[in-house]
């Protein structure tokens, strides 16, 4: 990353070059046992994350699958697949949905676990707190197939519990077809996401809150600060570094609007104008039709924008002193 190189050196190079080089080697040898513990991870990342990356080249080729890993036997076609995507009639819908859904997920899904953690922190009854914590983080371990099935049968018009409830309390006369109405789709999707991930997401914030110095609260108590003031002026500022780091990571994921959840919740083709996002589009148009190069090009486009967003978020965060790098 360019930022990394411009970052000021912590140890200014006061010694002449050769001895510094030697210094590095000596230092490395001195900590060989610690280095040994790092290298397996680095090798792992290199082998599984960096080596396969040459595959993105197929985005600039007409890739034929029987060439296997010998990708250079294919013809180079430059930006053909990229321009095909930009000119596709679905481009506008897909981009809009991707951005809207991921922004909604970010704006609602990101603060939700923080709020839950702050609320849980104020509970004094230990037993109750544990129970709530366990119940809220359990859905994280369910696969989307199960969650989508649950949501589907709850919102179904025939024997769906939500519709029965609404009918029993006389809010509606006839069951509402929630799963087939485009206007409800984003709400259903975001709610299901928040429900599934809120508890698990709050664990890290609870841990951060546990590390806050208790004497600060005592001092605030003596000064007469209310509970809300304490949360606002002590808890949140103290866990801010954690929040910022997670926010940068979330921003880097902005274009990943989700895949499984959307694919499984948007069964009805009527929903496509609001549900089609980059990943579902790649799956439907690219992979299901063997257009690997096209799928790669679209995926690469998404990755490039994501890196841009991540860099930007990190740049902004660096100003507050809590950046990733």
């Amino acid at each position, binding site marked *: 990353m360019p930022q990394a190189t411009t970052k000021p050196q912590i140890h200014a190079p006061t010694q002449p070059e050769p001895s510094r080089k030697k210094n590095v080697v000596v230092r490395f040898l001195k900590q060989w046992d610690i280095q040994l513990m790092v290298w397996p991870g680095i090798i792992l990342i290199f082998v599984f994350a960096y080596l396969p990356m040459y595959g993105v080249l197929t985005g600039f080729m007409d890739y034929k699958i029987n060439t296997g890993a010998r990708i250079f036997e294919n013809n180079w076609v430059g930006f053909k697949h990229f321009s095909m995507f930009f000119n596709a009639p*679905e481009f506008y819908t897909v981009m809009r949905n991707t951005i809207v859904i991921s922004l909604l997920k970010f704006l609602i899904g990101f603060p939700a676990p923080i709020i839950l953690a702050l609320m849980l922190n104020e509970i004094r009854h230990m037993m109750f707190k544990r129970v709530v914590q366990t119940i809220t983080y359990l859905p994280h371990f369910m696969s989307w197939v199960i969650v989508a099935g649950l949501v589907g049968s709850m919102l179904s018009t025939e024997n769906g519990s939500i519709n029965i409830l609404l009918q029993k309390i006389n809010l509606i006369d006839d069951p509402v077809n929630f799963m*087939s109405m485009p206007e409800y789709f984003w709400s259903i999707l975001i709610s299901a996401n928040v429900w599934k991930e809120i508890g698990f997401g709050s664990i890290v914030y609870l841990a951060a809150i546990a590390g806050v110095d208790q004497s600060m609260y005592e001092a605030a108590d003596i000064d007469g600060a209310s509970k809300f003031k304490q949360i606002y002026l002590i808890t949140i500022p103290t866990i801010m570094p954690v929040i910022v780091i997670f926010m940068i990571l979330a921003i880097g994921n902005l274009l990943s609007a989700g895949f499984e959840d959307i694919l499984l919740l948007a069964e009805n*083709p009527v929903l*496509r104008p609001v549900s089609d996002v980059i990943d579902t589009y790649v799956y439907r148009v690219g992979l299901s039709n063997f257009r690997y190069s096209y799928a790669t090009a679209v995926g690469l486009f998404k990755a490039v924008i994501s890196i841009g967003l991540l860099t930007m978020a990190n740049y902004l965060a660096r100003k507050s002193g809590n950046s990733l790098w």
Partner: protein
Amino acid sequence: MNKARRFSILLASVMLVLATVLAGCSSNTGKTTNQPATGQTEGNKTSDNKGNDEQTSTDGKWEFGSEPLEFSMYGHYSWYDVPAWDSTVAGRWLKDNKKLNIVPVSAGGNHEQKLSTMIASNDLPDVIWMDRGAEVERLRDMGMLVPFDDYLDKYPNLKTWMGKDLNMLRSEDGKLYQFPNWYTGRPNGNAGYVINKKIYEELGSPKLETTDDLYNYLVAVKAKYGNSVTPYEPHLAKDQQGLGVLYTAFGEDVLYSYLNAALRAIPKDGQLTSVFKDDTFREAQKYISKLYRERLISQDAFTQTIDQIEEKVMQGRVAVFASASPTVIAMNAHQEMVKKDPNSGYFMIWPIHKEGLDKNKIYPGTYTSLGWNVSVITTAAKDPEKIFAFLDWYTGPEGQSLLFFGPEGKNWKGFDADGYPNFTPEYDAEEVLQLQKDQDPIMWNGNTGYIDPAKMKYESTLPADKQNWAARYQSEITWKTQANATEFVNMDPAPDSDLGIIKQRIDDIFTQAYAESVMAKSDEDVDRILDKAEKDAEASGYSQLLEFRTEAWNRNKALLENK
């Protein structure tokens, strides 16, 4: 102390590094050991082939069962895995008596990725069971399939039972690469309407022949049972199913297949035309959307799962159940329901038609003489001829009787003059039903033209109410009301070609417009949605696709007339 700690850290690290290296290389080593292996098999294959040719030139054909045979098989479907060969009665029998072993290759629910990986790493299974069409052509194009032409005369079952229609399965190069499944020369299929007997009788058994009758009946169901019963259950509506069946009620000789992804067009005067502009289609969509609007069709039609449908039908909570194949679910439900109440259950009716049309020209379903899907033998197979010999035996009278009625001796013994099995007095209908259900996953090349009459030979000896539910309505109704759509096969362009991209867009436009028009708020709304779909489709190159398909259609007709 410090040294001991350093040493233990060293030990731990070395183990971690080793684990990493092993993990990192495992796929690689897998590949590197595999590649020479496949290279070898390919080498073997050619030499074996030569050996075979010599052998065949001296001994003629290879007798299935004369030598042990083992090959690997893979089903190219997300919902299907080839079962363990020992897990079925037929599999065990073949292993013991014919020295045959089939090694399953699992798709693990992710068939597209699985096949792509196998192709890319040159690690193909010997036999692939898959859909006809573009994917088979893709494999053939890459030179990964074995042609059957040399074997056809030596092992004659396929040729005998399939007849000249076999030519429809030939690839561009004129060779045959696919072994069909459920191929037939006679009409078959199950599409139609299933009626809940108890509800029907409680409503006074009204006339149910025209679309108006159906509408009035559904209204009456809704009035009497409210939300506790679904008046019209169309199965998975996003695949048309029961709604596509209703479409056929609005025109004589109008086929369900017109709406299929493989066609998406209306034939008019030798030309394929846009489905969105078609009057019959629009009339049907208006009727369907009226039913949907008035909550006479399941409101979950587009989102429900098969499990939910099955549950409703099993509990008798649907009044009319229509689909491209309602028989399996309806038969199970019927059998369960009559156990509790002999007056309940389901029955099928003659297809609904619009007032004024000839009811004998209404076809809710179609069949093709090519059947459903195919088995292909890949170049990875060591002995393609032996595998073909097995497939041919399997599709013949012996193989089919084994799959449908169990090993010879118990339920049947020997064949009659027409080649159908002679059923014994010990024939156990329950056991046969169970066998057919258990062995369904290994029926890879079903011979419908043989097995349907064979089944009927037994059923016809029974009184109507004792007959198998499905068999009874198949012979009384559905087989008479399915149309032959063989001329509309093989009309897909290659998926990654320009036309393939157009087809993909048209499919997207159609599925969306179809669902929207069913859920439309008024008749005008239906027109508006379909007008817009027509415009979008035209802009995406629909006419090019129609032209391509018209040509393919004409080619098919020529092939079929030539026989």
